[in-house]
């Protein structure tokens, strides 16, 4: 009798989703740097996506620009009657407005490319792990080949073939990045694939796609979350690099990279603010996302669990 009492006492309560989330957060906030990084990202996201409502100027509206305002140093009051906190560029654009609009473009491209690459990578990785055999060999061979080449080179090849523009850039980033997700999914899914619950599901008349996405996928998600965070940061920085090289976005719809590239022409003239402020925003964004990814990886690492 005593034995039975003991075992019922020791049985842990079933873990709900809300509890898991609370545990995750308790672990996550152990690092104040990571919490600060999360706050910074939230602020940048909100600030840039709502930028049309609060920044002083629409930088895309060429009619609203005044050539007399060109190259005003930070803090100068321009013809609009307000202070340009971060100065103005060669066309008289308010840098703060241009940076926040540019940041919005950068986020949009990074997130869209990240989500698309995630979806394609998951599909490729799951298909390879689930079916095995020749399909697996072929798919993973292509993925491995792509992983052996630097992402920037692949993106450059794609841009060389597709030309410039937002859609082309996103496509190039997806091509350059889906392989990371495919590799991670495949690694985790091949382990899960051999477990009994998948065998059990396969013995029922459930459709294959349902087993793949409803049974297999949830169990390979944790490592993917970490890869996704890092890949969004790297998509943003890749896009900025391509735009800086002059093969990314045109100056009519500038991202952060385009702004830095434009400002780069004027650094010898001592007009540092044209390139240094967009660069600082880019750096803060990328580093903050990486810090969050780092902490999520630590928290999800089974070796760290109590």
């Amino acid at each position, binding site marked *: 009798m005593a034995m039975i009492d003991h075992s019922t006492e020791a049985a842990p309560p079933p873990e709900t989703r809300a509890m898991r989330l609370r545990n995750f957060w308790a672990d996550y906030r152990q690092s104040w740097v990571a919490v600060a990084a999360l706050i910074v990202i939230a602020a940048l996201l909100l600030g840039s996506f709502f930028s049309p409502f609060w920044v002083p100027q629409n930088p895309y509206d060429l009619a609203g620009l005044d050539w007399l305002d060109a190259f005003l140093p930070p803090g100068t009051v321009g013809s609009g009657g307000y202070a340009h906190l971060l100065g103005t560029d060669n066309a008289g654009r308010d840098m703060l407005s241009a940076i926040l609009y540019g940041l919005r473009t950068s986020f949009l491209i990074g997130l869209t490319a990240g989500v698309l690459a995630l979806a394609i990578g998951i599909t490729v990785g799951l298909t390879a792990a689930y079916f095995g055999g020749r399909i697996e060999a072929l798919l993973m061979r292509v993925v491995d080949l792509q992983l052996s080449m*630097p992402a920037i080179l692949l993106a450059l090849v794609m841009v060389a073939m597709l030309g410039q523009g937002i859609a082309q850039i996103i496509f190039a980033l997806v091509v350059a990045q889906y392989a990371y997700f495919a590799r991670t999914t495949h690694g985790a899914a091949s382990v899960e694939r051999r477990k009994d619950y998948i065998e059990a599901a396969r013995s029922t008349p459930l459709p294959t796609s349902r087993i793949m996405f409803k049974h297999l996928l949830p169990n390979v998600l944790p490592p993917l979350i970490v890869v996704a965070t890092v890949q969004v*940061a790297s998509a943003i920085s890749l896009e900025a690099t391509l735009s800086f090289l002059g093969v990314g976005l045109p100056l009519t719809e500038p991202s952060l990279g385009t702004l830095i590239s434009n400002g780069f022409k004027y650094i010898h003239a001592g007009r540092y603010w044209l390139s240094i402020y967009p660069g600082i925003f880019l750096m803060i964004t990328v580093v903050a996302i990486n810090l969050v990814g780092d902490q999520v990886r630590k928290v999800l690492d089974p070796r760290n669990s109590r």
Partner: protein
Amino acid sequence: MFGYLVGRLSQAVVVVFVMSVIVFVGVYAIGNPIDVMIDPGATAEIRENLIRQYGLDQPLWRQYFTFVGNVFQGDLGRSMVYNISVTSLVFSRLPATLELVLVSVTIAAVIGIPAGLYAGYRPNSIAAKLIMALSVLGFSVPTFWIGMLLIMAFAVELGWLPSGGRGEVGNFLWFQTSLATTNGWSHVILPAINLSLFKLGLLIRLTRAGMVEAMGAEYVRFARAQGLPDRQIVFSHILRNISIPVVTVFGLELGSTLAFAVVTETVFNWPGIGKLIIDSILQLDRPVMVSYLVMVVILFVIINLTVDLIYARLDPRVRLKGGS
């Protein structure tokens, strides 16, 4: 082993063929190179002649086979912008890139390995934390942005070093390099630092990981128990053991230095092959684009093949699995 070798080789040939078709079709599908080359006011006759001269009136598949046939004779075509053969164009730019890569790899190794060793030896010290934070920066901050900061600090503000270009070249043995002159060195140092940062971060992390693992290993505990000084343990025992994975990964990463050289060369206006490919993309110089991309594909296929073969040589399980 022989069967495995043949299998891998034929795979590599298939990859190169498929990639060259994709690159060729992709590059030739965009725009019309003739529009870039001639004055818009030229007569239709001149236009026709030029199109025929470059073989652009032929169907795409025939153009591709002409291209492949020429490649096997060592002819990569003529640059439409510089009007010289692509082979001599690439070879005239290659030394600049190679010397840049050489200096940056040396910087990464000379700083990265000692820093990584220290960070692994005293993982909780402030200096170790600083080194790791630095390696994170090298990984995550875009290369072009760091390059620009270097120019702003050392060229514009302090005026110590030039901001771009290759500087004077001198003769060293049978080729010309800027490493032979002081002026050349002053030009190479900033871009080399810029290019080395990513490798530096990687090297620090690899060495540190190896060091941390080794510090807990049996052989180190045993060496300690024998009363050997730490200096001797680290430099003659641990360093030898961790050098194999470090050298492997580092060697593999050499290929990607080529990719990052594209960025660094553009920032510092360095006349290497990275700058060449960006310029040819911007000017739609198709023969250069196709040749460069196909060469890069071949380079990476060779790197992959070598790694596969070395692993197969070292680990019998790989060639047994791959051969089936």
